[in-house]
């Protein structure tokens, strides 16, 4: 039977050792953690133009991704009116390095739509063609979903999309991220119908309009509806900016 004081001594010693070990590990690894997070979201952004990147996209190394971002991407941040912010303005607003890649998008989407900052990534592929990667966020079945949509320089044709989610069901809603053939359907679709912004709709039961619709995913109607909704509101929010690009 241990005395009370020896118990207290034991607990204090143990707590201190544990706290020290973990704090040391956390500090030592923090740089890697941040780098990993940043590369993860960069890879997701690039996934929207995976078709335009030479080689197997899934085999891209961290160095490759950083390389593409440094040399083939021009980052900008716009607001709801389409105004582009300079790096200095972004730095003043607290965005690290004044770069779009450091926007806290989850936080931005908690603000009202008029106050949101949105990223735009202009990607130039190895043949010199330009693509514009936009970002949108919405609600899936269980929790948030988000995605990137890349437009060709005609600001109409979709060059690719990539989606991600917080908690959709594996095998069902999660297919928006995993199912590469479903995602590939978006390539070649148009977001404008004449002068009207028609966006892309995920249609349960199969796409009917070859320009503006894609097939749904069985068992994932609500997630798919979420994708349709976030594409519509997302593109609508970028409209002022897209108009300036078209001119």
């Amino acid at each position, binding site marked *: 039977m*241990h005395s009370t004081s020896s*118990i207290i001594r034991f607990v204090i010693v143990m707590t201190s050792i544990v706290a020290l*070990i*973990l704090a040391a*590990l956390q500090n030592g690894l923090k740089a*890697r953690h941040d780098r990993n997070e940043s590369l993860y979201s960069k890879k997701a952004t690039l996934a929207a133009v995976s078709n335009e990147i030479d080689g197997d996209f899934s085999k891209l190394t961290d160095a490759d991704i950083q390389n593409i971002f440094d040399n083939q991407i021009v980052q900008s941040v716009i607001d709801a009116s389409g105004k582009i912010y300079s790096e200095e303005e972004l730095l003043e607003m607290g965005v690290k390095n004044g770069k779009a890649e450091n926007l806290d998008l989850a936080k931005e989407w908690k603000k009202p739509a008029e106050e949101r900052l949105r990223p735009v990534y202009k990607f130039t592929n190895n043949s010199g063609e330009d693509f514009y990667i936009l970002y949108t966020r919405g609600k899936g079945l269980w929790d948030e979903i988000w995605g990137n949509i890349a437009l060709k320089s005609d600001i109409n044709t979709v060059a690719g999309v990539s989606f991600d989610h917080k908690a959709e069901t*594996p*095998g069902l809603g999660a297919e928006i991220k995993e199912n590469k053939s479903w995602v590939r359907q978006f390539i070649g679709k148009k977001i404008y119908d004449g002068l009207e912004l028609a966006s892309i709709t995920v249609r349960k039961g199969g796409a009917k309009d070859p320009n503006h619709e894609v097939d749904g995913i069985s068992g994932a109607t609500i997630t798919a509806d979420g994708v349709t909704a976030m594409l519509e509101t997302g593109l609508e929010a970028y409209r002022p900016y897209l108009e300036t690009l078209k001119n």
Partner: protein
Amino acid sequence: MADTAISEKKKTIAFGKKERKLLTDPINDDNPITVQVLGICSALAVTTGMKNAAVMAVAVIFVCTFSNVITSLFRKSIPKQVRMIVQLVIIATLVTVVELTLKAYAFESYKQLSVFIGLIITNCIIMGRLEAFAMANRPYESALDGLGNGIGYGLILLIVAFFREFFGKGEIFGAKIIGATSEYAINTTESTLFGWYQGNNLMVLFPSAMFVIAVLIWAHRAWNTKLVDVS
């Protein structure tokens, strides 16, 4: 004569029959999942792919072995009143170490396993072994026991993951084997022998893990009949 008898007793065997039993029992007769009914929770959620299952298995082997060793080293100094909390803190610390390491060196796995890394803490196998073995045995044996149980667990995990990944997605460790597009080694839309094959999407959903384990237990007990009705 007496000298050799004493020296034989003093000779410590590094890896004798008893030690081997510590390693092999949890694989068959005393398997944590199929016999002891422990560690089920994580076995279900992470077995959608063999890669995730393998990472989880390694994590559990690590935590189980080292928590066994640490607890065994301090088993005489841990005050009885705070025994459970101390054990939990040891486990929680090791799991945090695993999480921080995964986040730094295996980010993809970290993202995919998410909440379930933390749930290793409540993996009954680890706590169970601490109470049942490490508190009453020496560090070396405890290490072997932890290792054995971790391996027994990992084995079941990989078997379940194999069935779920192969019949659900047509992949093994991410390598595309059989499926409906040209990315797969066997393209069912073009193959004449396997054209009828369609992946079973149910395998990717949670309940399928239950069914696979049920069949595994059935097979295990039919083969090892002394396990019938044991739990």
